[in-house]
């Protein structure tokens, strides 16, 4: 048995989501489109450029109407050299897993075995990539979606810990990967923090290492 999803049905399903987004969010600057991976994954995915102030509403719409029931990853990027309206970016990756609670019979749950070849419309597993731009600010923040997906909880904790983007309405925010006594305001993935050799091409031109000096030479013990 080959486990193959019909590519045409997947394409149709992605287009349906894009059409639904255009109808539901027509008054905002939200933009949705069907995209394809350049290599690797074979099926299309839905890319959504979401305005910052609508993120929680869009998330609820995706979760409860479009069936995106799995929050795969929420991450952030600092773009200090980027355009003014996109100095920070939050990217969310969602999946439509289509989990129907397994039917119960005699105290046991039945397996839900479906033939991937006949999945259509809302049943096709789908990926979503949502990009939220944040304009130039020292205190970037977006709305938290912790209450929509519990899985977003630790993703948001990590994004705040490492990138420094705050999530409004997130309960119990704390350092997760860095030590608890890390100075307030220190977020290592912001671009002003550089590790040794960050901008040094000499690492590759001078393979023997003669004349190699780290960028912070003399400053670090």
């Amino acid at each position: 048995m080959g486990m193959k999803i019909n590519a045409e049905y997947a394409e149709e399903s992605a287009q349906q989501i894009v059409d639904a987004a255009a109808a539901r969010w027509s008054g905002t600057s939200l933009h949705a489109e069907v995209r394809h991976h350049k290599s690797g994954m074979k099926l299309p995915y839905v890319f959504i450029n979401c305005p910052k102030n609508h993120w929680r509403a869009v998330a609820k719409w995706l979760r409860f109407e479009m069936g995106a029931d799995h929050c795969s990853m929420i991450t952030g990027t600092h773009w200090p050299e980027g355009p003014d309206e996109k100095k920070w970016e939050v990217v969310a990756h969602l999946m439509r897993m289509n989990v129907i609670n397994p039917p119960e019979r005699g105290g046991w749950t039945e397996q839900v075995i479906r033939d991937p070849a006949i999945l259509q419309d809302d049943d096709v597993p789908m990926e979503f990539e949502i990009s939220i731009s944040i304009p130039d600010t020292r205190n970037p923040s977006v709305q938290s979606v912790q209450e929509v997906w519990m899985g977003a909880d630790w993703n948001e904790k990590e994004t705040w810990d490492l990138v420094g983007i705050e999530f409004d309405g997130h309960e119990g925010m704390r350092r997760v990967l860095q030590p608890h006594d890390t100075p307030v305001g220190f977020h290592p993935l912001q671009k002003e923090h550089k590790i040794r050799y960050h901008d040094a091409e000499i690492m590759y031109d001078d393979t023997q290492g003669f004349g190699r000096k780290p960028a912070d030479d003399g400053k670090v013990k």
Partner: protein
Amino acid sequence: MAEMWISMGPQHPMTHGLWTLKVKVDGETVVDTIPDLGYIHRGVEKICESRDFTKITTYCDRLCYASANTWAHSYIYAAEDLLEVEVPARAEHIRVIAVELQRIASHLIWLGAYCPDIGNLTAFVWCLREREMMMDLLQELGGSRMHYNFPRIGGVKRDLPIGFAMRARAKLNLFLDRIQETEQMLDESTVFLVRTQGVGYAKPEEMVNYGVTGPNVRAGGVNYDIRWAHPYSVYDELDWEVSVERPSIKGADSYDRYRVRVDEMRQSARMCLDALDKMPGGAETHYTEGDPMILTKARERAEEGKTGFHHFEDSRGESMFYLAGGGEQRGKHPYRISIRSPMFITIPYAAKCMIGHKVADIPAIMGSFDPCIGETDR
């Protein structure tokens, strides 16, 4: 009785790594838990920002010491998505074999580490003996025993060695026999059944909401696997079935999570055997223009604002790499690299599963989720 907090870890056999589980107990019963991670945070994401696209594979290998190959492949697919690289069919088949052998090895080291936790030391020796066969095969492919650095952007390091297919078939068939022995031993072991059955119930819809993936969620009867739902490589052409468990209505317990992993090892062996049969001939295992050409093209192909990502079925769940290109300015380096670790999301949920159980059940519950702290802390 007064409630009190107990710190399990960072040095505790239950943790399978370096982290702390703070447990609030009322007598013998767990009433609250707080996981505390980050003890071996190495800043891989930051380090990778100043490395070439081709040099990052080495770091990804070291994310998980038990499952190095899956993590390296996970990165390579994302990099190929960003750099728009085509991969020859033969290389894809070799990749499937490498990843599935690694998955068997990873599940075996999990079973080997889990059974001594709950009082069955024999399984440890048996599992390591069988894992040795997989390690030998992987060593033939990658040249080392733990960190193979096997995949390349656009292909694999080298073609299959002479006679590999023959040896792989023999060892996989032997493995399929031997895993039956191990399974019989565990299924007839009263100690194993008593410790695993009826502890750590996890509801399917709750697991999905918390972002739990992989064998843990399939143990709850959820038929979801990246390999069929979002197909990549040649998984949609191979002969296999998703391993899904049939749990009780209370949810998946530790025993279900053990069952689904044993079945997954069988499916992986089946996939490897099928990939060996279906592999196209020839010696085309690499993108014709090779690694150096990819790097020189990185400046224009990975322009600023362009991203590449890939969801990957790791041994522990859905791993994912998200890459952002930096264009002319960053040259051959990615601008941002972000890693989704399946265990980072699963550990908080696993900690919730313990609430209501006895303190003595904690190792039996935590171990069944297969934690790996290398990838969790990154």
